[in-house]
């Protein structure tokens, strides 16, 4: 059977003329969701259940088998008093605040400037998104080659103009600054892309009206374009925030959380607890705490946003 446009029209006419056929039980409807359901139950729901179960236990690996002993809330109590965990949360907060603010500011600026181009816009956009699609591992390699004290591009450039090279990743503040720079380089393109796309959707007649009323380019950007872009900017800022919580690859490869614990963010700390200290129960409890923290933050900010929205509407 082939369904052409003609038979589609015929079908429409027919369906207008006679009552719709009674809906039969559709095997297809239910069978279609089975694969996804199997995956979700098997590899999300079951592991999450196991995670929660593990978080209430003291778990040891005995002869290749996990032995579990119920310890109640001990693991969570320990998490509350764990200075290293607190430090990793603090590092994550510093990293997230810095990278979200910087990527959003740079991304918006880049979008506004690109939009001023008369031609070559698509060409430019094509190149500017490269960092966002290259593997984080490769991004780490790229920046190791730039930041390395011995062979790095940055120090070579500094030395050619007579300045002395820096240790960059080798010192605590330098390491945090470096991974922030790497993350900003990596993800500014995402902000750029969102804001740039939103810009294309702004009705040009609004801008024409503004320029007829005598507004300068800068004023139009500040008072007309930016407010119109706000929803896109806030949306992409939220996305960047979530990405910041998930960050792992670059720290693992560039600094391994160091020097000391200077760049140990939550994901790095979790890996250490789980795969180096082999404290499965405690690691699970930390995981549960982090997920709860993320979910609570989202729910609270959602409610907050609703409240503000309601108040401003009056």
């Amino acid at each position: 059977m082939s369904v052409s446009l003609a038979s589609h029209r015929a079908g429409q006419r027919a369906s207008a003329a006679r009552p719709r056929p009674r809906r039969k039980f559709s095997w297809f409807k239910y069978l279609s969701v089975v694969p996804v359901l199997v995956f979700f139950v098997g590899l999300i729901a079951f592991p999450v259940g196991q995670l929660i179960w593990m978080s209430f236990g003291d778990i040891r690996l005995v002869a290749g088998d996990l032995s579990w002993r119920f310890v109640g809330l001990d693991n969570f109590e320990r998490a509350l008093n764990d200075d290293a965990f607190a430090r990793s949360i603090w590092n994550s907060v510093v990293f997230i605040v810095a990278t979200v603010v910087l990527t959003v500011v740079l991304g918006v600026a880049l979008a506004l400037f690109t939009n001023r181009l008369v031609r070559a816009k698509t060409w430019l956009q094509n190149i500017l998104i490269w960092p966002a699609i290259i593997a984080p591992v490769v991004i780490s390699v790229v920046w190791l080659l730039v930041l390395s004290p011995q062979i790095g591009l940055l120090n070579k450039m500094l030395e050619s103009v007579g300045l002395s090279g820096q240790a960059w990743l080798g010192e605590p503040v330098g390491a945090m600054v470096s991974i922030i720079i790497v993350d900003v380089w990596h993800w500014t393109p995402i902000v750029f892309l969102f804001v740039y796309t939103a810009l294309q959707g702004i009705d040009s007649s609004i801008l024409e009206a503004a320029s007829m009323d005598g507004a300068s380019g800068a004023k139009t950007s500040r008072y007309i374009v930016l407010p119109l872009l706000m929803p896109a900017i806030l949306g992409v800022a939220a996305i960047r925030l979530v990405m910041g919580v998930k960050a792992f690859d670059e720290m693992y490869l560039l600094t391994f959380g160091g020097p000391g614990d200077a760049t140990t963010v939550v994901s790095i700390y979790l890996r250490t607890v789980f795969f180096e200290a082999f404290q499965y129960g405690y690691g699970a409890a930390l995981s549960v705490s982090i997920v709860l923290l993320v979910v609570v933050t989202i729910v609270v900010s959602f409610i907050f946003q609703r409240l503000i929205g309601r108040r401003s509407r009056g």
Partner: protein
Amino acid sequence: MADTVRRRAPFSSITALVLAGAIAATVVPLLWMVVVAFQQPRSIVTPGWNIDLSLENFLQVFSPGQIYGTQVVNSVILVVAATGICLIASIFAAYSLSQLNWPRRVVIGVLAAAALLQVIPPMTLVPGLFGTLTTLNLNGSLLGLILLNVVFNLPFAMIMLKFAFDALPTELRESASIDGASDFGAFRRVMLPLAAPGIAAVAIYTAIQVWNEFLFGLVFTTGGAQAPITVGIATLIQPQEIKFGGMAAIGVVTAVPIIILAIAANRQIVAGLMGGAVKG
């Protein structure tokens, strides 16, 4: 729009300067990796600027005795299998949720759960997944890695494809079924071809995500012959001795296919990134 822009903000030297700077900041670090990859290992570590041309790093890293060639093959298998399974599962589920009269409450519940999964840091699920994979005896195998990549790309693929199917007119499916097509027939012959552009965008995006994935590869393989190439690169970054040349060579091999894809399929990638940045 181009006309009004020209009148409103004449192409200024500041714009040119800023954009040239942005392009340079994007391209120069990448070019440096390419330059390092094609240098003699010896001239990489000598101070100052010694630029020469040599294939030695590539030959060394991909010589028969090395494991990196196998890992590139693993990555390709991983991409093909995980993207394929993820697409098939999500296409059916998205179509069913979009077109086959599920109660609104069910649809919203599924989408909310899928969106929530995007927000959870993957590392936090590792302890639970570790237990599950051990139970299933899949720990350390490529199959286990394929399944994990499928499941963590499913939510996004399903949400995006649901929207793709939502954009199609329901009447088309209804008229097809009036013409005697089964639910499956209407899906396969009418709706699936119409959703092809959306499916292509999701496919390319998922493939890039799987190719780039590192965390699961790192913790669920032992880093040897079962590992993807992203984990292979990591093994070259040793605290004592970083093998800059080999690292850069594998970096080039890993990045170049993605950049070629970016140039060839720019529109699909942009569509995928716009919807999928949630995934990070």
